[in-house]
């Protein structure tokens, strides 16, 4: 009991500490030195992480809580508490957010060091604000607190993508991210309104307990709308196009927000609401198909990108697609597991790419890199480990989590598995194309760049090393049953979260031989693709030749941006122009002006109410009335 009370006394500090960091750095940005800003910014997240560890172990002992702080809204029609849900799912996310978040803050103290101290403090303020919002998102005890965090992370993403706001392309990318997220947010909101209108509550506890009161139509509609919200935040078809553009932000931001944490919010939300989705098989099918389609589409685009961050961005979209595939086939643990391992290896890859970009003096085009292996050994080794993790080499973290999702897909439908494996082959190809073009072969940049090549300082390599270790061993908490009995400790830990779904979902038992075979095929395929890319791109030469045929289509990202531009953006703009220039001016206002002219004409005719005199008459009238009223009052 003692431990339990302690938890409630300190758990609110987890989000509040980063908020304090935001306020100090935000308000004091003119007076704080860079080292002070950096220490405050990183220190508050470290403190949150330490508390999160404590909370995690308490939860592990079975102490879950719903902490109520104050009534956010308390009326007869709507009751929303400022509540925090402390359980297995949120405590796991707390660890990821504050743990990876802390490492990225440390990394940033070096990466952003060339900014002047005001902008440096502003950067840390935004980053802290992001952590605060993300923590609200996962800690909230109802959909409304979740939505506060949900829009909050979107805002921070907007602010950080546009951090270098002199560049208008960056601003456009920031705006695009925010607007596309808001399209998703509308879906989220409609789902919450729907829930409120049927159940009168948005508290997880009450919604999940009363889920049987919802008709199939309601539950399908609600879950589809929630999924629309997820496609915005987690960059799925059709709302994924903002994420690659979001790479305009500083690289640590890409690592934290656009890879490890924010973009997994949609997966968190669906995992949190798993019972709703389990009850809506139609929605689950939609999620599986959209997730898989996104995984494949993004992987094909990644094959032909030359910007190192763009490859990683499409890779993120693709990996998020796998997580949705997992959710869609009911492999909830697998999806959450992949969120975790992906947070490790993708943060590592982005930070590694940042280290490379830093060494290259801002260069992001891989065609101008090559041979960096001998200049930056820590970056190189850690990056290689990250690549092996993402392609799912046996023993590395990505192997376990991806395998679990693909096994779930196979159980649902072997076709889903087959397409999923195809995507995994592409992943292996484009990741090792990236690795080889960057680290192997000859250096293809300028002499000046070559002269400056160097390994990054400790503040950058330290997070790389930690994340590399996690990218390797992070999967060992989820070792499948066939390798080790009771090896899937994550599944056991998360069991209470998915218990309600597991009770009704059909069980798919797979023979060990099938499971070995599936693993064998995907690993062998990935290995072949990996070696092919390694071999091909370690000899890469700059040719300057334009892509043709299908390669050109892929390099141009299937022209999806152009498509959206012509079927959505332009029609909306022309409708706005039509309303402004035609409807408003000629129709609505024209009618009124006509009336006005008629009145004016009439008044001129009777020579009494000439426009100059109208006010005089009205004035006299009002003064008259006023005098009468006042006399009446004082008599």
């Amino acid at each position, binding site marked *: 009991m003692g431990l339990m009370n302690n938890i409630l006394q300190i758990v609110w500090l987890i989000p509040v500490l980063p908020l304090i960091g935001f306020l100090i750095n935000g308000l004091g940005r003119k007076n704080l030195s860079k080292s002070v800003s950096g220490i405050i910014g990183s220190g508050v997240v470290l403190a949150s992480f330490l508390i999160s560890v404590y909370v995690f172990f308490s939860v592990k002992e079975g102490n879950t809580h719903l902490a109520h702080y104050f009534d956010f809204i308390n009326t*007869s029609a709507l009751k929303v508490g400022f509540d925090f849900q402390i359980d297995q799912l949120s405590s796991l996310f707390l660890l990821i957010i504050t743990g990876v978040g802390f490492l990225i803050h440390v990394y940033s103290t070096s990466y952003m060091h060339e900014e002047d101290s005001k902008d440096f403090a502003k950067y840390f303020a935004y980053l802290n604000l992001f952590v605060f919002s993300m923590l609200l998102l996962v800690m909230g005890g109802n959909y409304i607190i979740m939505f*506060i965090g949900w829009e909050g992370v979107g805002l921070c993403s907007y602010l950080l993508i546009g951090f270098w*706001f002199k560049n208008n392309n960056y601003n456009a990318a920031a705006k695009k991210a925010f607007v596309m997220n808001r399209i998703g947010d509308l879906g989220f909101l*409609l789902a919450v309104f729907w829930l409120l209108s049927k159940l009168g509550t948005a508290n997880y506890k009450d919604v999940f307990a009363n889920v049987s009161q919802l008709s199939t139509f309601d539950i399908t509609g609600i879950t589809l709308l929630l999924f629309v919200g997820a496609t915005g935040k987690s960059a799925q078809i059709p709302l994924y196009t903002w994420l690659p553009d979001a790479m305009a932000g500083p690289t640590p931001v890409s690592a934290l927000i656009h890879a490890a944490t924010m973009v997994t919010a949609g997966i968190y939300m669906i995992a949190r609401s798993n019972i709703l989705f389990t009850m809506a098989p139609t929605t689950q099918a939609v999620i599986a198909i959209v997730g898989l389609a996104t995984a494949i589409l993004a992987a094909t685009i990644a094959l032909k990108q030359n910007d190192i961050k763009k490859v990683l961005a499409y890779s993120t979209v693709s990996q998020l697609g796998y997580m949705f595939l997992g959710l869609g086939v009911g492999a909830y643990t697998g999806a959450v597991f992949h969120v975790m391992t992906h947070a490790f290896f993708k943060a590592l890859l982005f930070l590694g790419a940042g280290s490379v970009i830093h060494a290259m003096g801002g260069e992001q085009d891989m065609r101008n890199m090559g041979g960096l292996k001998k200049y930056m050994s820590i970056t190189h080794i850690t990056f290689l480990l990250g690549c092996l993790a993402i392609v799912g080499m046996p023993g590395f973290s990505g192997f376990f989590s991806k395998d679990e999702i693909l096994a779930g897909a196979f159980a649902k439908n072997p076709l889903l598995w087959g397409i999923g494996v195809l995507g995994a082959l592409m992943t292996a190809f484009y990741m090792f194309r990236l690795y080889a073009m960057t680290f192997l072969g000859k250096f293809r940049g300028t002499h000046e760049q070559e002269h400056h090549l160097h390994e990054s300082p400790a503040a950058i390599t330290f997070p790389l090393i930690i994340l590399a270790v996690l990218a390797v061993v992070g999967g060992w908490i989820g070792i499948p049953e066939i390798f080790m009995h009771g090896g899937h400790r994550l599944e056991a830990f998360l069991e209470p979260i998915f218990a309600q779904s597991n009770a009704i979902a059909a069980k798919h038992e797979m023979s060990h031989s099938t499971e070995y075979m599936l693993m064998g095929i995907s690993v062998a395929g990935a290995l072949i693709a990996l070696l092919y890319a390694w071999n091909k791109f370690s000899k890469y030469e700059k040719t300057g030749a334009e892509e043709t045929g299908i390669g050109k289509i892929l390099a141009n990202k299937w022209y999806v941006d152009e498509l959206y531009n012509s079927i959505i953006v332009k029609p909306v703009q022309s409708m706005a122009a039509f*309303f402004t220039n035609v409807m408003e001016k000629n129709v609505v206002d024209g009618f009124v002006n006509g009336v006005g002219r008629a009145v004016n004409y009439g008044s001129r005719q009777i020579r009494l109410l000439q426009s100059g005199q109208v006010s005089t008459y009205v004035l006299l009238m009002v003064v008259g009335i006023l005098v009468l009223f006042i006399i009446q009052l004082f008599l």
Partner: protein
Amino acid sequence: MFGNDITIPHLLIFFPLVAGLLAFFIKGEASVKAWSLFAAFITLFISLAALYFRNDAALSGTVFNYEWLKYMGSSFSVSLDGMGRILTFLTAFSFPVIFIATYKNTYHHSNTFYGLMLLSQAGLMGVFLATDALLFYFFWELALIPVYFLCSRWGGEKRIAATFKFFIYTFTASLLMLIGIIYVYLQTGPTPFSDHSFSIQAFHSVALIPSQQNWLFWLFFIAFAVKMPIFPLHTWQPDTYEQAPTAVTMVLSGVMVKMGVFGVLRWLLPMFPAAVAKFDNLVIGLSVIGMIYASLIAIKQDDLKRLVAYSSIAHIGLMCAAIFTTKQIAVEGVMIQMFSHGINIIGLWIVIDLIEKQLGVRKISQLSGVAHKAPVLTIMLVVIALANIALPLTNAFVGEFMMFSGLFRYSPWYTAFAGLSIILAAVYTLNMVQKVFYGEANSLTAGMRDISMNEKIILGVIVVAIFIAGVYPQPFFDLAKDTVTAIVTRFK
């Protein structure tokens, strides 16, 4: 005379009225400004007292009946309920903010300018407090008429045309309402001194058959719809906001549009329930169309003032739609949103005015990179603009959430359509932020300086208010509870 019966509602009306009349006779711009600001602060303290004493039995209800025009069945009766407290507080809060924000603006005949402003404030207070239909009408005009003069004498280049349009719209609408009031009056029962009564109780309980309600509804609704304004009766608003002096635009948009919203809640809904049930779909439809229509037009505006004007039309459209759902949750949302909308839009005008005073322009296409030279101004603007598009933990979020939630219960389809305005609002707001504040500074904005301490304080007050109401909105709901319940129970 008043004797012991002077109550807070009376002070809220008479203090600005007398202060305004005195202002006409004060010589010297500095003195009249100081006097007006002082008066506005006193009024603010009175309204804070009204909030503070809300549970005091002696003040609850606060009705004072001065037998005034007794033989017509009218009386000077005023009362302060929850909705009245919110709106009189908004009025009392806005004026000192406006006076401070525009303190450096100079006006010819400043005594007349400030006198009219204070008279208008008295009129607004009266509108929110009157519990007598004739008195309500009188204050309605008292609030509006000074604005005609303020716009036509101190406005921009096209002020005469704009004022004329504003005048035609609002005056016609007011006359329709007057006809409606007289007609309803003639249907009321006798009092001990008269054949009929103007009292709110008589108006609320008057027996009108549906066919009478159907046309009376429109006489009142048009008056209120013009004031809000509701599509397609809105075109006076962008012109007037653009041409009126900024201080007047702030009053018009921050406080006066609430007269329309208030009128519907206080008078129209209780009097014509049958007509409301008949026309709710039409009104909500118009409101929702107006939301999208105005949001789309806002995307195309180059003038900052017109952009804010169209944005406001969209936001008010949601309030009107929410009211006509007659759902508890929606009307509760309207209560807090009436206050939040006022604070936010005044904040936006202050920023626009600061830019225009320094640079002489307010065209988006002529501005760029303001954030380099004026970072504090930029932060303030971004917070206020995000509040305007209802980001969570800002004041507008809770209200919009509840209004949409109520609208969803009325019609999911309307909600989905109206919800597009959430996306469009992000488009026009971020466009504006990007073009005006971000990017490289141009030759015009390169010489800009950041805001002064006074300006920081006044914008700081608004930003703090935004967050307080956004994080802890509950006091508004506690205040408005009884009013909302009384309104919506008529429709259950």
